[in-house]
Structures are given as C-alpha cells and as structure tokens.
C-alpha cells in the first residue's frame, strides 16, 4: 500500500503533489481561526457562525486560486467522509432533552418529519420549475455535464 502510493508520486513534479496532511490541517485551522474572529462581528440578531464563514473563506480562496485543491482536498474529503459519525454526539445529545419529548414529543417529531420532507421536495421542485423557465422562457442552455470532474 505504502509502496504503491509513494512510487508514482516521485514521478510527478513537486508542485502537483498533495500537501502533507499536517499542512492541510494547518490551513483548515487557520481558516477556522480567521472565521472565529469574524463571526462575533455580526450582530446577535443576524448570527453567522464560524463554520459557515469558514466555508465561504475556503471557497473564495479556492475560486481565486490562492489555495489549490491539492492543498486541502485530502484532509477535506476525509472530514466529509466522517460527517455521519461526527453527528453521533449531536444525536445522543437528545438524551438530555428527553423531558421535552415527554410533553409535546410526538407532535414535535411529526412536525419535524413533515418539515424535512417539505423542505426537500419544495426546494427541489422550485429549482426544477425555475430551470424549466430558464429553458422555455429565456431560451438559455440547461445542459449539464453530470460526469464528475
């Protein structure tokens, strides 16, 4: 595994190699740090949390080519692959709110179930409608290449 992994890398020019994981982690940490400084600047009535600002910063840095995909994608893809596991503590956190569920629980769970389905379906159908309008009213191209890059 280690051999087959390191062999092709030596053939590539140095600039094309993925950054070492520790560097990728440092980039993420730096972005989170800057985002955590920006987040408190928003008023309490308009909260924008640190990870949302961080996502925007990383996207802008990628779009402006200041950061290349190879600098962040190995660690980033790894973190994304963990997302369901990272959510386990949030799920278990409901153990502390069992009292809320005891009083109005069934109705709340029912509303959340309906809300989740509604948000998925309404947003998806709205998009499909707007893309239909783009095609048939404004006659602009809607062909998309669904192959992954």
């Amino acid at each position, binding site marked *: 595994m280690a051999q087959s992994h390191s062999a092709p890398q030596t053939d590539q020019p140095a600039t094309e190699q993925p950054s070492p994981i520790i560097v990728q982690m440092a980039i993420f940490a730096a972005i*989170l740090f800057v985002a955590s400084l920006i987040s408190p600047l928003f008023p309490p009535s308009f909260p*924008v949390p640190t990870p*949302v600002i961080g*996502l925007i910063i*990383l996207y802008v840095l990628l779009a402006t080519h200041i950061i290349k995909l190879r600098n962040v994608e190995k660690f980033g893809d790894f973190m994304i692959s963990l997302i369901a596991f990272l959510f386990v503590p949030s799920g278990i956190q409901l153990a502390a709110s069992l009292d809320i569920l005891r009083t109005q629980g069934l109705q709340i769970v029912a509303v959340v179930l309906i*809300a989740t389905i509604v948000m998925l379906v309404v947003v998806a159908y*709205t998009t499909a409608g707007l893309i239909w309008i783009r095609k048939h009213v404004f006659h602009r191209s809607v062909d998309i290449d669904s192959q992954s890059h």
Partner: protein
Amino acid sequence: MVILSATPHMAAWGKWLGDALGTNAAGASAGNAIFGIFLSLLVYLIGQWLFKIGKGFFLFQPLFVGMVLGIFILFLLAKVFGTTTANFYKSAYKPGGDIIFWFLNPATIAFAIPLYRRNDIVKRFWLEIILSLIIGLVASLFFIYGAAKFLGLDHTGIASMLPQAATTAIAMPIATAIGGDAAVTAMACILNAVIIYALGDWLVKAFRINHDPIGAGLGLGTAGHTVGSAKALQLGSIQGSMASIAVVIVSIVVDIVVPPFAAIMGLK
C-alpha cells in the same frame, strides 16, 4: 440498581467504574472524555455492522442506530448509577461527545471543496440557485407553520419549528429571538439530519427528485444540512456541490426571512 451496593466489594467496584466514567464527584471534575469517544465509535460501528447484515434496511443507517443505541445505553447506565439520563449524559458522555462534536467545524468548511469542484454549475446557475432557495424556503415556512398549527403546537412550539432549515448555530438564536425554545430547535435540526440520512434515498426516489441534479442537491442541503450534503455527494458531484451551497445560503436566508415571517404570522 441495587446490585452495585449489595456488598462492600460490589460498592467498591461501582465506585471504580463511576470514577472511570466521571460520574462520581471526584471523577466529574476530571472530565474523563474517553468513555464518550469510545461509546460514540462503538455504537456507530454497531450501526455500520447492522446496516451491512441488514442489507441496507433504512432504519439500520449507522447514524440512526448509533443515536438510538447510544441514548439507550446512557439510559440503562443512568439507572445502574441511580441518576437521571440527562445528568448521566452530562457527566459521563458529554466530555467525550464534545470532542467529536468539535470536528464538525473543519468538516463543515470542507464542503467548500465539493462546492468548488463544480464551480462551473455555480457560475452558470447562480441566479436559479439563489431564487430557488429563497422561494423554496419561504414556501416551506408556510407549510411548516400550517403543519405545526394543525398538530396543535403552542406559540413556543411553532416558533421553535420555523428556523430549522438553518444550521444549529443560526437556528437556535433565531428561535429565541422569535419566542421559541432553542433546545427544541436544536433537536429539530438534529432530527432533520437523521431523517435525511435514513430516508433520503427513498424520498429522492419516491418524489423523483433526481431528474434535476441541481434541485436534488439544493433540496438535500436545505433539509439535511451537512449530513444532507454528504448524502447528495453520493448521488453525484453536482448534487454535492449544490447541497454545499444550499447549507450556506439557506442559513443566511433564514437569518433574514424567519424573524419578519414570525412577526407577520403574529408569533411573539
């Protein structure tokens, strides 16, 4: 239960276990994180194993199994130690759970990567993306308000349901601002993710959503937050990119739209 204190020997065993879990006074101050981390991994792996041998039965999704099993284990252990589930959660599980929870920060910003990988779609369809999310969210708010009213939630309950499209860190303060209960809203956001994770594939098929990959991605990101984005990535790169952008834009739209919506509806 009584067994632990039945004999002096057993009492000592109970104290040792209590120290290790951080439920005794001495252990609580140490904030032992190991149990929480271990339990999280254990229940998630059991979920993965069940999902595999259950041939992908939707209720055996690892996140859902992990959540239910984890709460059940904490409930049983709380009984053993003669305390409430909420107290046992706080002293024994939370220190470790918080460490795992922290990693949602870098995991969330990592979604800029799939977003950027399909920047071609973002550049071409940015107007449709933003309009879909604004129109879709406002329309959803009416449905959610109606469903909550129909099922008989009180004002606090309704107000707690409205901001759930945003990520927890935005939804909770907005809920408080419009007269809701932030804890209920947090629960709604978590359940959104769990529901999308368990039912997402089925819903996408049942409502034929994947005909339009942009809409599928935006819908999954709105309804399931970052977990919905992970689900969308399994459908394709466009879906993943669109879900990632939905997480950001919907959160900001909730910031702007939900407080006036609540005011118009006479909440607060």
